């Protein structure tokens, strides 16, 4: 058989490899340029006590999570129970109530429970913009020095916790 007839097949196979790789990537996940950089500085009031404030520097020395959520975000409901599990392991989860009404945010926490170390409010999404938030929920892992180590876009899952978040936190702590 003429070997030259196999050329189109070879090219097709190369194309196929590229297509298969392309299909397995999630285009909704935009790699964050913030990973490896210091968590942007901010100061926000708490969700319940608006006279009290929170800043990332309050968490220096701890490995913590910043979870961006909103009462209007249905996917946040799906991941919510996982934050109880994370808190129970002694990992503080800071809840950032993003572009939400204070009342609605508080109601949501009363309804589904409050797993957060502290809840803060960002009604205008100003801090969200500093962190490059484009779709809630989003979760950041911040280390003891205040450096962002990981960002998860979309609802947290048990698999991501077990395979990515917990091992990473273990590594950061040691």
């Amino acid at each position, binding site marked *: 058989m003429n070997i030259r007839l196999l050329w189109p097949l070879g090219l097709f196979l190369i194309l196929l490899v590229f297509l298969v790789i392309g299909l397995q990537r999630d285009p909704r996940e935009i790699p*964050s340029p913030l990973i490896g950089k210091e968590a942007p500085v901010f100061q926000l009031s708490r969700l319940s006590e608006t006279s009290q404030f929170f800043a990332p520097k309050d968490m220096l020395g701890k490995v913590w999570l910043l979870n961006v959520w909103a009462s209007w975000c249905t996917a946040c409901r799906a991941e919510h129970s996982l934050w109880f599990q994370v808190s129970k392991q002694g990992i503080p989860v800071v809840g950032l109530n993003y572009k939400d009404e204070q009342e609605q945010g508080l109601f949501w926490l009363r309804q589904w429970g409050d797993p957060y170390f502290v809840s803060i409010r960002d009604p205008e999404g100003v801090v969200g913009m500093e962190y490059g938030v484009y779709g809630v929920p989003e979760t950041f892992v911040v280390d003891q020095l205040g450096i962002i180590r990981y960002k998860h876009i979309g609802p947290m899952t048990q698999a991501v916790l077990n395979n990515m978040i917990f091992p990473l936190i273990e590594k950061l702590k040691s």
Partner: protein
Amino acid sequence: MKINISQLVQLLVMVCISFSAVSENSMYEARIQVLLEDLRCPVCQNESLASSHAPLAYDLRKTIQAQIEQGKNDQQILDFLISRYGDFIYYQPPFKSTTFLLWMGPFVLLIAGGVGLFFYLKRKGKT
């Protein structure tokens, strides 16, 4: 009705001011529009920031407008956005190691095709 000189001058000055304000505004508008067309909305990824109706696109448009009014240039605004949302937000990807294939791929294919064509025609000419 008598209009004295000073009144006339006053009127002229006011007209000039309002015209300059309009032209400055439309200049801003045009600049924002050009900039927004080159920016991708992170939420609806096949829309530019100019056309997207996502709430985030609205916020980003507001922020960009505020930065233009603060006198920032296009590069400063781009840097602001890229440092938060990554190269992804800009429709013109930078030339880096990860985008080498993207930028150079077409030229590689062009050269490969040219070489292939050259040998094909050479062989065809012989027979």
